[in-house]
Structures are given as C-alpha cells and as structure tokens.
C-alpha cells in the first residue's frame, strides 16, 4: 500500500525518476538561495527576476523552437542583463535596488512581449510558463544538476561576505571591497537557479521553490545554518510530495509541487515554534529572567 503510494511511481516510470532527480537538485540549490534572498529583503526581487527571464526564454523559443540551449541562453541573457543593470544602477546612483529592479524587469518584459507579438505566430508558450518537469531529457537534467552544483560551490566560497553584507553592509564596506562583487555574484546565482527552475517548473513558479521553503523555515529556527537545512528539506520534500500528488491525481506537476510548498508554509505559519500563530496563543507562563 505505502509502496504503491510512495515508491511504485518512481520505480516503475523512468520519467518519474528523472523528475525526482530534477526536483531534488533544484531544491538543494534553491533552498540556500531563497534563505539569502529572504534575509536580504529580496523576497519579491526573485519574482521580478522571473518576469525578466520570461521574455528571454520566449525569444529563444521563437528563434529555435523547443531548444534547450536557445531558451537557456535567452533566459540567462535577459536575467543577467536585468540583474546586473539593476544592481549597477543601485550601487552607482541614489536609486534603491528594488526600484531599479522594477524598472529594468518591466522594460525587459515589455520588450519580450513586443518581440513575441512581432513574430505574430500563435506559439504555445505554456510550457515556458509552467515547465515540463515530467519530460526532462538528459541534457536538461544535466543543466539543472550543474547549476545546483555550481550554486553550492559559489555559495560556499562567498558565504562569509554574503552573510556579512546582509547583517551589516556598512561594516563590510569599511573593511573590504568585496561587497559589490559578492552581491553581483549572488544575483547571477539567482538568475541561474531561476533558469534551471523554469525548465522544470516554468519561469513564474520557479521562484516558489526558493521563497516558500525559506519563508516556512523562518518559523522553525533562529539559526542561519539550520534555516538553510530546513529550507532545503522543505524544498526537496515539496518536490517529491508534489510529484506524487501530481501522479496520483493527474494534476499538473509544477503547480502541485509549489502548492505542497505552500502547504508547508501554511503549516509553519500556524504551528512553527518561532513566532508561529498557535504557540503565540498557547498559555505559557513567563520565565523568571
């Protein structure tokens, strides 16, 4: 019974095994990225970045059809242009990064819509929007796994300045010039993970696997390392559970995965021991000191 429910889908079908590898790799990369985005108050920046990637991927799709390389390059170019442009404007002028990002992604989005409509064809961009986690070929899987590996290595190297810049940007500026390059590297990692994610989940939902686990994790721990661990667990768990839900009930897998992550978030809000709703309303006597 439990075997049929949890194991059989993966044991019997190759496409489910591929999807499993894909979502696990995505979760491992997206977990720490999402935590850092949340702590750097960039929770909504990921959403903006996803919109920025969409036109790039669409242009790649229009130019070369369902071509992994063209869509990836298109997404990366559009994402990097927006992230680096907004980051550079925020650092060089008085404009705050959120405003610069909004400006840049809207330009990118409008440009994308313009290009797509000029082409005039009635192309099906649904899979760019919602991904195809159940149809990951070898090349796509390799791309996703490479991006996750690169993300972990880059984060390990840049962890100290990334954390320091989040806690006390003024202090980092006073002791080091590492702040600006570190931030740009981080933005690049965000773009790469979104591009990796859109093949499986679609451009817009890819952000969900970053932000929902991080936001849920905040209700379980006050400690940074643990927060990253919890986020990765929730992201990977949502991936697996979402695939199973999608398999058994026949709903699209991308939204199913993100909705499971959403469920984890809702449970965390309700029951999380760190500032959750229920613990707040439980009668507890205050301590002596």
């Amino acid at each position, binding site marked *: 019974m439990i075997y049929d429910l949890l194991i059989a889908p993966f044991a019997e079908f190759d496409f489910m095994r591929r999807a499993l590898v894909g979502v696990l790799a995505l979760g491992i990369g997206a977990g720490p990225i999402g935590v850092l985005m949340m702590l750097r108050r960039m929770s909504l920046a990921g959403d903006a970045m996803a919109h920025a990637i969409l036109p790039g991927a669409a242009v790649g799709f229009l130019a070369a059809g369902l071509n992994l390389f063209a869509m990836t390059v298109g997404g990366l170019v559009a994402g990097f242009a927006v992230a680096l442009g907004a980051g550079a404007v925020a650092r060089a002028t008085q404009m705050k990064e959120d405003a610069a990002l909004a400006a840049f992604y809207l330009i990118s989005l409008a440009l994308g819509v313009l290009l797509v409509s000029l082409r005039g064809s009635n192309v099906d961009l649904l899979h760019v929007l919602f991904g195809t986690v159940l149809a990951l070929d070898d090349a796509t899987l390799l791309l996703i796994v490479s991006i996750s590996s690169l993300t972990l290595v880059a984060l390990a*190297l840049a962890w100290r300045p990334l*954390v*320091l810049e989040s*806690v006390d*940007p*003024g*202090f980092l500026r006073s002791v*080091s010039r590492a702040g600006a390059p570190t931030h740009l590297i981080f933005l690049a990692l965000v773009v790469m993970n979104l591009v990796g994610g859109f093949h499986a989940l679609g451009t817009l939902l890819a952000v969900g696997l970053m932000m929902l686990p991080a936001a849920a994790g905040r209700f379980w721990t006050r400690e940074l390392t643990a927060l990253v661990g919890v986020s990765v667990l929730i992201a990977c768990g949502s991936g697996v559970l979402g695939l199973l839900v999608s398999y058994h009930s026949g709903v699209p897998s991308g939204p199913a995965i993100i909705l499971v992550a959403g469920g984890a978030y809702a449970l965390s809000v309700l029951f999380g021991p760190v500032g959750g709703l229920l613990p707040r309303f439980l009668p507890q006597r205050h301590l002596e000191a």
Partner: protein
Amino acid sequence: MGNVLAFRNLTLGYDRHPAVHHLDGEVAEGDLLAICGPNGAGKSTLLKGIAGVLSPLTGRIEGHIAARDIAYLPQAAEVDRSFPIDVYDLVSMGLWRRAGLFGGISRADRVRIEEALAAVGLEGFEARPIGTLSGGQMQRALFARLLLQDARLLLLDEPFTALDAGTITDLTALVKRWNGEGRTVIAVLHDFELVRGHFPRTLLLAREAVAWGATGEVLTPANLAEARRMCEAWDEDAPACAPSLKATAAGRAA
C-alpha cells in the same frame, strides 16, 4: 610621533553643497580627539571622509595610515537586528582583517573573541541572537567587534548616544584603554562634560573649524556661540564657492 591624518583645504559634502568647508589641520598619532559641534555641523561627514566612505569635493585628506588600519563605527550602525545570527558571530566579524574572505578562525582567535566579549561585559551572551539585545548591549557588542579589529585609528560617531551612565562609563574606559595602547581615537560627541573629563583635544566644527586644540581652550562659551551662529541652513541657491572653483581649475591645469 608623526601625523596620522592631515586635512588640506578639505571640502566634503553632498550634491555640491559643502558639509565640511575648507578644513585644514593635522591629527597626531596617539591623539584622543573629540569632535563637537551643533547638528548639521559636518561631524559625521568628516568621519565618513576619513573612513573613505565619502570622497572630497575639493582638497584632500593625507592619511599616513593604511585603510585597513582604520576602524569606523558609524552613528547608526546598519546592523539588521532581525538577522538570525548570534552575538559571537557578530563580534567575530572584527577578525575580518585577519581572516578575510576564506581564512579560518584559529584557537587563538577564539580566545581573542572571548576576551573581547569579556572586555565589554558580555560574557555569557555568546549564543544570544542579536535581535534579543538591548540598545546598550548591542553597542557593547559593536565595541567588542572594534576591539578585535585591532586598528591604529578608531573613528566613533556618537558612540554613546542613548546609553545609560554605566554603559558610557564602561565604554569610555575602553576608549581610554585603546588610546593608552598608542591608538589614535577620533570621536564625535555631544556631552561636553564627558569631553572635558576624558578627551584632551577637541575640534569644534561648524562646517568650518571654529577652534581646534586643547579641550579647555576650545570649549569656551564664546566659541560655542560662534559655532551655533555659523551653522546656517542649506541654501538651494548658494553661489559656487570661488576658492574651490579656482582650486579645481588649478588642479585641471596641473
């Protein structure tokens, strides 16, 4: 001992409006210097200039000291108090010069961190998330971080604002200890009693230097009244400052 810093016709400001105007003077190695003056006198701006956060509009700061030997505690430290990090990790950031991007924290470094926490009276606070600290405890933690930075020149911007008497006494003792070790300390302060009691030299600033020298001779009623008078408001239609234009032109010609 020589000079750590020399200001040469230094003008610092924002959007071409000077906040520190044509300042000349030197800070000797081992000085314990207070910067006093009304709000808007350019005190914080001057520290930003020394710290290298703000570039001069004209003139220059001659620093006979490497940037890495300067520790700067801004007026409102930009610490994100909601970040999930504990006091120990916050304080250990002071080892950046030693550890840098990738360096490890050695056993000797851990002893230094413990000593710094003890020196500011925060033993037992190591594992506390920084979000749970009071204002005074936070300032003590930032002082512990300064201690670990082991800098030759310390810039403190209103380090005692909104602190109780006990904390101010403890932290003042720490500042004097640093100075006793031969470090140069420049602190922006508003409490004249504190300045008279502990800081031998004072710069009274009101955009320009009103007086600079021994504290007793600087903080006179006449000088303080003069400082208040000179600190006029930002003028949107102020004409370009002639000497600075000439200096810029000369700089271009040269």
